């Protein structure tokens, strides 16, 4: 008759993976036999001859050992019902052994819980810190990103974006934007970025900056602006988003732990992969109010340093606050335009008075050159 094995027996002459055996308990001790009835007569070991311990990968098996030398045997009991039955049947002299085994299991499980609890707690705490917008962690992580990484990351998204758009390569509008960019960037002290500004054909009244110094100006903005100084104001604002690394900060905040781990581990490709996942969202990241204000304030200072009339920027905000908000998309998620204009007036009053130098282009001619371009939705 074949019986179902409920334990593994180890010892000299037995398979290394253990010989399956059928264990039964009685008042005399532990009896075992092979499941198919082969292997000779039943062997019964008195409780007094046994030593007991916890064993197995998770300390969840009861290990019974007896004998020495070639006759040494070890039984591994896994079945919980058999373990409970053994505890009930075993005489008092084995109580100390069983308590020691139970303590081993408790310690192993406690350690297991402690480690996992600690790890989960740490991850949750870290996630919460990021979720609640711990600027300290974000700033710390962003400060660890080399400029070259940032440029590569921005370039990847920039190329993806431009490949789907109509980019103006030449013409008065491109020349005008290049002149503004050149005058502004020339006044940035210790500029680590090689700014690249493209003019993209679109009715959208907007401009945006990507990490690493990649800026896109839409023709809709050029058509809407009343002067070159207004566009230069927007451009200065966008350049300062790059200089203050606002895009990187928003990206790390959005991607959270994965981005921080990539940065700490020095995994440039991983970070670029994550940024790619964000894709164009990176271009349209909503900056926080504090970041917008910082870009405004540093932007107007840069305009002043470049001797570009800073009131163009203020005028633009004033016009925005007056105009139909449904049609003007620029800064729609930003602080109220009127309040921004007031803040900028105060900032401008505190700056040294500099006489502005006019641009080398005629703004009317720039706008006229765009009149024939078909808006692309």
């Amino acid at each position, binding site marked *: 008759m074949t019986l179902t094995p409920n334990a593994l027996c180890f010892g000299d002459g037995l398979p290394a993976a253990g010989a399956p055996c059928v264990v039964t308990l009685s008042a005399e001790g532990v009896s075992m036999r092979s499941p198919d009835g082969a292997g000779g007569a039943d062997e019964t070991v008195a409780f007094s001859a046994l030593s007991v311990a916890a064993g*197995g990968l998770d300390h969840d098996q009861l290990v019974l050992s007896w004998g020495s030398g070639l006759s040494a045997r070890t039984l591994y009991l896994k079945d919980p019902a058999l373990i409970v039955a053994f505890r009930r049947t075993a005489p008092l002299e084995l109580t100390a052994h069983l308590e020691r085994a139970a303590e081993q299991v408790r310690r192993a499980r406690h350690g297991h819980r402690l480690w996992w609890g600690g790890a989960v707690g740490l991850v949750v705490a870290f996630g919460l810190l990021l979720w609640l917008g711990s600027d300290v962690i974000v700033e710390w992580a962003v400060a660890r990103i080399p400029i070259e990484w940032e440029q590569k990351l921005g370039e990847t998204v920039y190329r993806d974006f431009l490949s789907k758009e109509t980019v103006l390569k030449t013409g008065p509008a491109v020349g005008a934007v290049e002149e503004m960019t050149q005058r502004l960037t020339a006044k940035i002290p210790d500029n680590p970025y090689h700014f690249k500004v493209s003019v993209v054909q679109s009715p959208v009244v907007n401009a945006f900056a990507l990490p690493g110094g990649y800026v896109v100006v839409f023709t809709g903005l050029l058509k809407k602006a009343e002067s070159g100084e207004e566009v230069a104001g927007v451009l200065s604002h966008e350049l300062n988003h790059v200089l203050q690394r606002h895009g990187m900060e928003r990206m790390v905040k959005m991607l959270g732990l994965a981005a921080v781990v990539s940065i700490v581990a020095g995994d440039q490709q991983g970070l670029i992969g994550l940024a790619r996942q964000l894709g164009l969202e990176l271009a349209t990241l909503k900056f926080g109010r504090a970041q917008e204000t910082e870009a405004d304030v540093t932007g107007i200072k840069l305009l002043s340093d470049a001797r570009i009339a800073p009131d163009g920027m203020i005028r633009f905000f004033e016009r925005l606050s007056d105009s139909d908000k449904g049609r003007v998309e620029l800064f729609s998620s930003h602080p109220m335009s009127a309040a921004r204009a007031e803040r900028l007036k105060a900032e401008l009053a505190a700056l040294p008075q500099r006489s502005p130098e006019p641009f080398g282009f005629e703004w009317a001619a720039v706008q006229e050159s765009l009149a024939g371009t078909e808006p692309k939705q």
Partner: protein
Amino acid sequence: MKSEILYPGAFPMVRVYLNDGETVKAESGAMVAASPTIDIESKMEGGFLGALSRKMLSGEKFFFQTLRAGRGAGEVLLAPTVPGEIVVMDLDGVNEYMVQKDGFLAGAEGVKIESKMQSFTRGLLGGEGFFILKISGTGQLILNSFGAVHKIELDPDEEYIVDNSHLVAWTATTTYNIEKASSGWIASLTSGEGLVCRFRGPGVVYIQSRNPGSFGAWIRQFIPVSE
């Protein structure tokens, strides 16, 4: 179910004979050929949640193939993805094997496959991830290795040190700890071994003669990187 290893060595296949009505579950994509009496079904072993946890946690495939001799006895030829040996073992209901995630090739109907969470330190440092496969039940279990497979037999309390990247499977009666290969961290790292597993018997440990991670790193140098 009976099985026979064909072409032992680096590129083996296993021929599984099924009686009428018998089934074998195999890793998704493992079937090479089969008799016309064999029907192929895709099955989520352990139900949806079991399959999901296996996929999410241990990186194993979400579906297993179930090959059923539904229209008479027949045979199935199975092969692993990577070059390496195949090992067949019989489970008798009390043996349990822990298997690294790419080691499972096939198993009889009575073989049970679960994901098992390792202790934190083993999961973090062991190189197998936080979850491994726990295989128990009855019937034949077929594993595959990367390179040749080698069996280490351990007596009670006997110890053996294994580089964790070379692990294939080990019995649940063994215990192991993760430790540095050398006494100091620098020596451990510069020796190229880093962390190792110190196994303690009784039980058996199956190891593979090649390290998939190192092979991947070696082959990556020849792959052009697109910028």
